[in-house]
């Protein structure tokens, strides 16, 4: 604050400041408006043109309710898997040395780089009845492709990096000597894990899991290709919105789409709160 005040006393500063102020600001606000803010407002305005009763009827139609149920249930399941497996992966990558560790570390980011449509067709094939993995599961009576389990596999795939990448840096910073101190004071390995290692990781784990959940809830590309997309069985909410649009049912699409939009806003808020908590923990 004081720096900027002293700066503005120099004669050329106010002009420069204004110039610097207007261009990046102008670009930021204009672009945000055209690409994001106006479209978001348009969707909400369109939803507002529906009467509340109509909105409620469309947003809570039985098929819509079943898609929320399937979407959130499966996304929660996928997030839980990634919560445990992601923390374990971060632990292995930070604490242990083994061959091809760097390769393993690099492939964690694959889901960010690989298009979801590609992920969808390859997961559907690998987990099909004759597929590499599916053929081992079929004798056990487990069908993955074209079932709700397939939806879960797709959701796990696309959200792998979140927990790993939020936990990894925290684990790296964690002082190893604290663990040694706990051991030398007589704590068992489990005690050390639960009481010394885990607590500082919890904010990071929760942030990553919430991000993974948010990503899974909105996923379309990989799920639409691995699932059978049958209502009440494995149809998820984003795909229902797409189907409503294809049927030219704009009102139905708007109502369910708005519900999804509001949920992603709430999840974004949660991630921000968790991150603030994390920073306080670090500080």
């Amino acid at each position, binding site marked *: 604050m004081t720096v900027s005040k002293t700066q503005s006393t120099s004669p050329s500063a106010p002009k420069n400041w204004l110039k610097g102020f207007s261009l990046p600001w102008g670009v930021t606000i204009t672009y945000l408006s055209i690409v994001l803010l106006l479209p*978001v407002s348009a969707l909400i305005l369109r939803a507002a043109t529906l009467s509340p009763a109509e909105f409620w009827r469309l947003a809570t139609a039985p098929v819509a309710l079943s898609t929320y149920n399937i979407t959130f249930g499966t996304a929660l399941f996928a997030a839980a898997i990634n919560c445990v497996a992601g923390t374990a992966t971060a632990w292995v990558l930070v604490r242990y040395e083994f061959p091809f560790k760097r390769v393993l570390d690099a492939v964690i980011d694959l889901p960010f780089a690989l298009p979801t449509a590609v992920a969808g067709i390859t997961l559907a094939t690998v987990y099909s009845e004759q597929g590499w993995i599916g053929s081992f599961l079929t004798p056990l009576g487990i069908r993955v492709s074209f079932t709700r389990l397939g939806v879960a596999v797709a959701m796990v795939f696309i959200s792998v990096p979140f927990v790993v990448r939020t936990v990894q840096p925290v684990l790296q910073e964690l002082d190893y000597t604290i663990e040694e101190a706990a051991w030398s004071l007589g704590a068992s390995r489990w005690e050390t894990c639960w009481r010394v290692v885990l607590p500082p990781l919890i904010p990071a784990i929760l942030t990553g899991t919430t991000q993974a959940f948010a990503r899974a809830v909105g996923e379309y590309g990989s799920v639409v290709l691995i699932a059978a997309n049958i209502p009440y069985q494995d149809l998820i909410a984003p795909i229902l919105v797409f189907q409503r649009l294809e049927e030219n049912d704009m009102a139905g699409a708007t109502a369910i789409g708005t519900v999804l939009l509001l949920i992603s806003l709430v999840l974004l808020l949660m991630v921000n709160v968790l991150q603030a908590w994390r920073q306080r923990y670090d500080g």
Partner: protein
Amino acid sequence: MTAESKSIQSLPGEVKSEKGREWGKIALIAAVVTYLAMVLLLPTLYVFIGAFSRGIGPFFATLIDPDFTQALRLTAMAVGIAVPFNVVFGLCAAWVIARRRFRGRTLLLSIIDLPFSISPIVAGLMLVSLYGRNGLLGPLLQSLDIRIIFSFPGIALATMLGGMPFVAREVIPVLEEVGTQEEEAAKTLGAGEWQTFWRVTLPSIRWALLYGIILTTARAMGEYGAIAVVSSNLIGRTQTLTLYVEGAYRNYDSQSAFAASVVLAGLAGVTLVIKEVFERRIRIKDEEV
């Protein structure tokens, strides 16, 4: 139990627990490798196997198929428009957020992150409700004879929306870390705004910027859900690469679908390699400091 008795007890058990820890370590690594193999490695490997399942001939036959080349051209055009826009926006937004203190700064940061958490289908729906025929701007656009939805501008907008946050996200922390000292020094020495930006700011953020560009490009090439909504998906006209992959797969032409996927996955590979290089450089820089 006193501390003394515990240490005596642990003496003979030490070897056993050391061994147990070693086994626990191996078991944990095996579990993680199995998990990643099932979820990530095998499915990704299969993209390449699937593309060459009928040999190298059919693979190249797909690559010269006019529908494929048309889809590739459309994707390249969407990327060519969306990425420069997103880079300029990302730089401006990063500068505003990192260099200015104003009310609603965290709000702006959250808004920029929004495309990460919005479902691509909802993103497409948003664009339709604004720019579509029955959208808010529909009558205006129709009177001006501008078509956005079901045509190329819609695809470009959807591509921009999905990749919007990456550059800003990558550049902001670096801008905050390098601080303003060098920029101020340059200005004191008489450099103009542009000169300061090109000569001082840009060199210090170049790796973060490059990584942001790579990420936004990867995302733009892979954009699918939002484009599926705003595109009419006419083969050879408004079909992008991802829509081509889906279309071929649904027509039981999985060989072509995987061949096109290899092109998309190739970029994913490039992304990961550049990310590695980028992070290694940061690590080296950190160690120098």
